[in-house]
């Protein structure tokens, strides 16, 4: 499977590189001096990061609505006979799987940067499985809840927030499958590279958003 791929660096990533990850990233992807129009990869990653910035504002507007409603309606938040979303072991495991997938997808991207295509494919497949596990888990959780979309404020906020996040997880998984399929085509390396980096960024973004949603929806009990 590794035919035609040049091996540049086989060694594992040293700690020093991780520590300098953010400064290097900023140096590469924020061209204050300009005149780098030919760096197509850097340009595209910059654009995608800017897009994620505005995407996070959509989530922030939902979270603002949630917090605002929750603070002003703390006593009649739950309609009678409804317990709200529960912090069960099932949800915790689901969260752990989603969050740890960030630590699988980043080595996958790094493996591709170092032209280790096989390692990339295995780790990438593992991320897809973890994302799919989360989606299925959330579907099971939704079907077991005792409230619906129009059951008071708790239903409105819970389903819209988790649903919008779930839509992003689904998009991420579809992107990952696309990149995996693309990696089996010949001569795909240069073309697939931006897609892989962008998908990785997107996946980190989805995970970070989940940290906030999880703390707000499950841990913040009235």
């Amino acid at each position, binding site marked *: 499977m590794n035919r035609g791929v040049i091996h540049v660096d086989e060694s594992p990533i040293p700690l020093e590189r991780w520590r300098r990850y953010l400064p290097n990233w900023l140096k590469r992807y924020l061209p204050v001096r300009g005149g780098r129009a030919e760096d197509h990869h850097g340009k595209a990653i910059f654009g995608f990061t800017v897009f994620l910035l*505005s995407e996070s504002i959509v989530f922030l507007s939902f979270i603002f609505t949630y917090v605002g409603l929750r603070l*002003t309606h703390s006593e*009649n938040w739950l309609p009678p006979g409804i317990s709200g979303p529960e912090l069960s072991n099932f949800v915790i495991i689901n969260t752990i799987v989603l969050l740890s997938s960030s630590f699988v997808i980043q080595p996958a991207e790094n493996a591709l940067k170092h032209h280790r295509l096989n390692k990339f494919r295995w780790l990438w497949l593992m991320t897809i499985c973890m994302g799919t596990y989360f989606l299925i888990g959330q579907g099971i959780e939704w079907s077991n809840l005792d409230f619906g*979309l129009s059951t008071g404020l708790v239903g409105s906020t819970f389903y819209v927030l988790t649903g919008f996040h779930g839509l992003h997880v689904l998009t991420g998984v579809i992107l990952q499958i696309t990149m995996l399929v693309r990696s089996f085509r010949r001569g795909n390396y240069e073309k697939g590279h931006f897609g892989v980096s962008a998908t990785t960024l997107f996946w980190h973004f989805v995970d970070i958003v989940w940290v906030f949603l999880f703390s707000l929806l499950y841990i913040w009990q009235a």
Partner: protein
Amino acid sequence: MTHDSSENITEDREPQNESENNWRRYFSFSTDHKVIGVQYMVTTFIFFLIGGLLAMLIRAELITPQSNVLDRPLYNGLFTLHGTIMIFLWIIPFNAGISNYLVPLMLGARDMAFPLLNAISFWILPPSGILLISSFLLPNGTAQSGWWSYPPISLQIPPGQPINGEFIWIVSIVLIGISSIMGAVNFVTTIFWMRAPGMTFFRMPVFVWSVLSAQLLQLINLPSLTGALILLLFDLSFGTQFFKPLENGDPIIYQHLFWFYSHPAVYIMALPAFGIFAEVLPAFSRNPLFGYRSLAVASLGIAVVSIFVWVHHMFTSATPSWMRILFMFTSMLVAVPTGVKAFGWTATVWKSKLHLETPMLFAMGGAAMFLLGGVTGVMLAAVPFDIHVHNTYFVVGHFHYIVFNTITMAIFAAIYYWFPKITGRMYAEGWGKVHFWLTFIGANLTFFPMLPLGLQGMVRRISSYDPRYQGWNVIASLGGFLLGVSILPFIANMIGSLLYGQRAVNNPWHATGLEWQTTSPPPRDNFEEIPVVKRPPYDYGDPKYSVIEPSDYHQGEK
């Protein structure tokens, strides 16, 4: 400042250019930023005409105190769509169009950063606009709750109608918002990555600074409107209760999310207009732009401050007093960078020999009218005054002084100023001046009476009023019809000059911007070779940087 015309220019241009400038490509899915820019500008101008027609219907209704021309639901629908079209389908996308055309040329780039994305963001716009206007055909008419669509009014729809005007309104505004966000990603990336060698941040024209500030606002604030509208759509159609007061929801949260975008939207509209003033005023007064750096930074300053002012629209919405005071302070703070801008324009034309061509007339007219619009804005930022005139015609007069008398005048200045560059033809100067004077007089006749009307207490969004308000209303309506007529010489001038106008040279105004260093119209890749920038952007009259135009060589040889 003469309109040079040289037949040599047409012969010099490469033949492929002539075939590429075929009119058909303006109807195709092109990825050329210049074609997309023109597509944006022409499409939004058609929407401007539709929005203007709606405005004239509103003024026709208001000429008499009784409600006799239109029935009330239709009147509500008219002012809702008038506001929506003028904001979301005229000024904001027109600015996207002119920025699309100019920013790569001004930066010395071959194209935008993501040409395909650019084309897609344009092609979302016409279908969403047509969708929005088509809601007039629905049995219950279009959305009737104003362009801000406050719940619970916007949730009061006749039962059993899944597809209603409000639903269509939300869907089309979300689509237009997606188009704007894609455009903003493209602009910000272009300005950061596509600058020519030597084009540092402080060699960018102020227009580019303004576009950067405005598009950063689009990125940071527009998603909050999208989020609010998604929640409103869920309330309207899927039974959620975010904004329904009867079911524990909170409509005030919608107002917060809405104004978090829609107040900065004013600066998204105004900043490119300020940028246009900064291009036109130096060129026609042959002076370097006064205080270039402070004007550039002031653009960013306006953007930053404007993120923190949204509550001044909600002084009467049960806002606690400490919050009112806080937001009164931040709202008045906007006047500081804005004042820097106005001071810079004044100092640029100070003691210079003015060349009063049409673009300069529009720029000076717009900048002068901004004084009245800006001062009434500071008045409205003061809590006691705002509570007094809240929801009256004073507010309507104030923002029309900004959006029409300042921004739309700046847009006309831009159209006349860059017309030779875009089309390769000169416009007819005499008709341009006729257009300016009709517009200037018509606009002031229309919008000035609204200020005294508001102070006397006439409430907005009504189709019938107390007879004592009729005098000023008749003046405003006549002014409105004059404004409608004033657009006719403009259209005739544009079409006539496009077909039969004199050939334009590359740099008819002897301006210093990079966009004037290429041919008119520019070739497919903008520049024959990417220029290396070694000069500040506005070095009019500085002998150190004086350049001789290629077109001047031709003149000399003849």
